[in-house]
C-alpha cells in the first residue's frame, strides 16, 4: 500500500468530565473515499474537529503525506490541502453562485473585481469537476438544497489545491433524488484523484460509495473495514452498538386503552403521508435521524408548524392546533428538545418556571399569589426530587437533569392527557435519566399517553411499547419493542436494512 495521505494516531481529547477521544486512529489512502461511522457521542465530530484544528488534541499525531504536522491549525491544515464541507451550508442567501464560490478568495485585477473571470471559472468547475451545469448568476436563495451543497463544495475546492475533502453528514437535509446529484459530484471528484472522508449516519450511503470504513465507539477506533460490501452494514452496526443496554428501564408493559391521538395522512414540507395513533396509557416512540422529519412531526402536532394536509383527532375531537396554547388547552403538552431556549426561562426561579403554564390556577384576577405558587412548586420539587429543593433557585443554575424535571413538573401540575417528549434526556446524566424514565412510566401507568421522539435508539427500545421509524420524511415501519434489538432499530433508521 502506498504512503497514507492522512494518518491520525492515538488521538486523545478530553473535555471536562468526558474523554471524547481515547487513542482514536484514522488513516486515509490517496484517492479513496473513506467512511467514518459511529453512534452519537462516539467521537466522529470530535476527531474531525481535531483534524480541522478547531480542537487541540491532548495527545497523538497527525501525519499528512508522510510528514508529521507539528501544529494543527485551521491555516496549516488548509495549506496542506485538506478541505471541510460542514453540515451547515454557510451561504449568503442573496449572493450569486459565483459570489458564493469565491467568497473570501475573490479574484481581482486593476480596476476591481474580475467578475467575468470568476463566473467562467466557477461554471467550468461545476461542469468539469462536479459534472453538472450551474449558471454563476443564479442567486443562492433560488437554488435547491443539493445545488447549494455543490456550491459549498465548489467554494472549498475552487483553488485547485484540495487533496482531501471531509464531508460531514452531507446528505442529512437532502431528499433521495438530491442525494443522487451529490453522489454524482463525489464520484466525479474521486475520478480526479481527490480523497474524501465521508461522515454519515446513513449506512446504506456508506456501503454505496465508500472504499474503506472506520468505526468509532466511545472515542476509540473499534474496527476498520478494508473492503465494503453491500451486506457489511450488519457488521458495522454490531461494531457501532457493541454494548449491553443498561438496566435503565423499568420493566412495565402497559395495557393501552382508548384512542387518545389519531393522526391521518399528515403532510408537511419535511414529511409526507404520516399516519399513526397513540392510546391512553401507552408510550410510543418516534425514531429517525436528524432530517428524517421526526422533529417536524412533533412541531406540527403541537401547533408550532402547520401541516399542509391531513387530519389530527385528539381525545375524540378533530383538531388542528394553530398555536401551542390551543394544544395545551386541549390537554396536549410538550417537553421541547431545546429546553434551555424553548423549555425554560433560565433567569426565572424554579417556582416561576413550574407555574408558568398554570398561572391561572395560582392567581386571582390580576394578582398572582406568590405563596401558593411557591408551595405548589415545592410539592412538585419534592415529587420529582428536583435539586436543589429550593423553589426560588434560578433555573439557570440547575443541572441538565434537574432542568428537565422542572419542565416536566410544569406539565404535571396541569394534569395533561398526552405528553410529547422531544429528546427528553439529551445532556442529562445517567442518574437523572433513570428518574425521568421512571416518571414517564408512571405517567403512562396513570393513564396518560406519551409520545417520545428521540435520537437515542437505546432509549426508545427500553422505554417505549412500540416505535415509529422515520426515514427521509416517511414512516417506513412501526415495530413493537418486544424482543427488538437496538442494532435492528439502528439498521432501520440508517436505511441499512429494508423495513
Amino acid at each position, binding site marked *: 500500500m502506498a504512503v497514507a495521505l492522512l494518518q491520525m494516531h492515538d488521538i486523545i481529547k478530553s473535555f471536562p468530565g468526558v474523554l471524547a477521544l481515547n487513542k482514536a486512529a484514522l488513516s486515509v489512502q490517496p484517492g479513496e473515499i473513506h467512511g467514518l461511522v459511529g453512534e452519537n457521542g462516539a467521537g466522529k465530530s470530535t476527531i474531525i474537529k481535531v483534524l480541522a484544528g478547531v480542537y487541540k488534541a491532548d495527545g497523538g499525531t497527525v501525519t499528512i503525506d508522510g510528514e508529521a504536522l507539528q501544529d494543527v491549525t485551521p491555516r496549516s491544515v488548509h495549506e496542506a490541502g485538506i478541505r471541510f464541507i*460542514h453540515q*451547515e451550508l*454557510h*451561504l*449568503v*442567501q*442573496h*449572493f450569486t453562485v459565483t*459570489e458564493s464560490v*469565491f*467568497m*473570501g*478568495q*475573490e479574484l*481581482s485585477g486593476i480596476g*476591481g*473585481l474580475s467578475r467575468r473571470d470568476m463566473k467562467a471559472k466557477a461554471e467550468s468547475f461545476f461542469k468539469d469537476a462536479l459534472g453538472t451545469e450551474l449558471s454563476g448568476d443564479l*442567486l443562492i436563495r433560488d437554488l435547491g438544497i443539493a445545488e447549494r451543497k455543490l456550491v459549498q463544495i465548489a*467554494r472549498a475546492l475552487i483553488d485547485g489545491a484540495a487533496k482531501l475533502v471531509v464531508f460531514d453528514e452531507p446528505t442529512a437535509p437532502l431528499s433521495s433524488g438530491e442525494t443522487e446529484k451529490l453522489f454524482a459530484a463525489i464520484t466525479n471528484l474521486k475520478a480526479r484523484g481527490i480523497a474524501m472522508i465521508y461522515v454519515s449516519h446513513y449506512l446504506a450511503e456508506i456501503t454505496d460509495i465508500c472504499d474503506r470504513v472506520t468505526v468509532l465507539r466511545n472515542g476509540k477506533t473499534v474496527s476498520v473495514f478494508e473492503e465494503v460490501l453491500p451486506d457489511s452494514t450488519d457488521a458495522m452496526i454490531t461494531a457501532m452498538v457493541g454494548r449491553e443496554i443498561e438496566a435503565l428501564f423499568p420493566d412495565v408493559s402497559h395495557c393501552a386503552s382508548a384512542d387518545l391521538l389519531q393522526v391521518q395522512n399528515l403532510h408537511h*414540507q419535511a414529511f409526507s403521508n404520516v399516519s399513526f395513533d397513540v392510546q391512553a396509557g401507552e408510550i410510543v416512540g418516534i425514531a429517525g435521524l436528524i432530517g428524517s422529519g421526526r422533529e417536524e412531526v412533533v412541531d406540527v402536532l403541537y401547533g408550532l408548524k402547520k401541516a*399542509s394536509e391531513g387530519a389530527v383527532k385528539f381525545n375524540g375531537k378533530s383538531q388542528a392546533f394553530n398555536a401551542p396554547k390551543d394544544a395545551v388547552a386541549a390537554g396536549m403538552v410538550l417537553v421541547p428538545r431545546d429546553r434551555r431556549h424553548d423549555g425554560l426561562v433560565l433567569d426565572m426561579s424554579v417556582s416561576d418556571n413550574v407555574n408558568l403554564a398554570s398561572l391561572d390556577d395560582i392567581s386571582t384576577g390580576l394578582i398572582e399569589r406568590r405563596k401558593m405558587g411557591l408551595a405548589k412548586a415545592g410539592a412538585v420539587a419534592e415529587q420529582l426530587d428536583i435539586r436543589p429543593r429550593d423553589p426560588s433557585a434560578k433555573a439557570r443554575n440547575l443541572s441538565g437533569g434537574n432542568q428537565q424535571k422542572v419542565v416536566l413538573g410544569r406539565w404535571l401540575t396541569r394534569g395533561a392527557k398526552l405528553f410529547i417528549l422531544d429528546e427528553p434526556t439529551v445532556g442529562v446524566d445517567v442518574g437523572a435519566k433513570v428518574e425521568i424514565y421512571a416518571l414517564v412510566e408512571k405517567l403512562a401507568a396513570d393513564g396518560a399517553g406519551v409520545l417520545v421522539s428521540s435520537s437515542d435508539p437505546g432509549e426508545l427500545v427500553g422505554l417505549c411499547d412500540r416505535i415509529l421509524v422515520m426515514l427521509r420524511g416517511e414512516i417506513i415501519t412501526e415495530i413493537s419493542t418486544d424482543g427488538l434489538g437496538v442494532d435492528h432499530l439502528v439498521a432501520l433508521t440508517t436505511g441499512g436494512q429494508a423495513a
Partner: protein
Amino acid sequence: MTQSLTIRRILDALPITVFVLLFLYLSLNSANFLSFPTLELILKQAVPTVLVSLGLATVIVAGGDDVVSGGIDLSIPATAIICAAIVADQVTNHQSPLIWGLVLAFGAAGIIGAVNAGLVVWVRMTPLLATLATSVAIVGVTKVITESRRIGVTDPTIVFIRDGSIAGIAAGVVLTTIVALAYWHLVHRTKWGMNLQATGGSRDAAEISGIPTNRFVVQSFLLAAFAGWIACSFVLARGSGSSPGSEENLLLEMVLATFLGAAFSPRRVVTVWGAVLGAVLVSALSVGFISIGVNVFWTGCIKGVLILLVVASAAAGREQ
C-alpha cells in the same frame, strides 16, 4: 405555501407600486414636475441625503439588513451637522482657513466612527441603540460648539459648491456623483467590498471563509462617519452656513432612502446605488408634494408611512 408566496409578492411590490402611483399623481397635478429644471432641482436637494445614505448603506451592507439586530448607523446626520458646525465655527468665528476647519472636522468624524465601531464590535451593543446614543451625544456637543446659534459661511469654496457648476451641471451634483461612484466601486466592485457584503450576508459564512468580520464592521462605521464628514461641506453649502436642528429631517430622509433602495434592488437588499436612487426619489417626493401644496405635516406623515412600508416589506421578506 402558495398563499404566503402571494402575500410576499404583494408585499414586495407594494413600496414600488405606492411610489409609482404617487409619481403619477404628482406629474398629473403639478404642471412642470417632469421637466429638466425640476429634475436638476430634485438632484440638488437630494445631495445631503445621498451622501449620508452612502454611509448608512455601507454599514447595513456590512451588518446585515435586519432592522433591529443588523447594521445601522443613526449618527451619520448628526456627524454631518457637527462637522458643519466645526467648519463654520472655525471659518467664521476664528477666521481660520477652510482646510483647517475641515481637518478638525475630519478628526471629529474619525472619533465618532471609532466610538460607534467600538460600542458595536467590542461592547457588543446593538448598532441601533449604540448609534442612537452617539447621535444624541453629538447633537449635544454641536449645541455647545454653536451655542445653538446659526453661523453663516461665505467661504468661496462653499459658495462654489452651492452655486457653481461643472460642465453645465450644478457643482454639488457633480461632486456628489463622484463620491457616490467611489462608494459604489468600493462596496460593489472590489474584493474588499465583496468581503464586506459577505460579512453582512452571513457572519458565519464569512468567518468560515476566512474573512475577518469584525474588521469589516469597524471599517464600515469609519466609512459611515467619513460620509458624514463629506456631507458637511454640502450641508454648509445648502444652508450657507450651519443652522442648528437640521439633523432630524436628514435622519428621516436617510433611513427612508436607504431602505427604499433595498425595495428597488433586484436582490431586495440594501445597496449603494439603491440608496442613491432612494435618496433621489425621496427628494423628488418632497419637491413634488411641495409643488402641489401638500401641508408639510402631511408630507412628514406620508414619509413616515413609507418608511414603515419599506421596512415592513423587508422584514416580511426575511420571514419567508
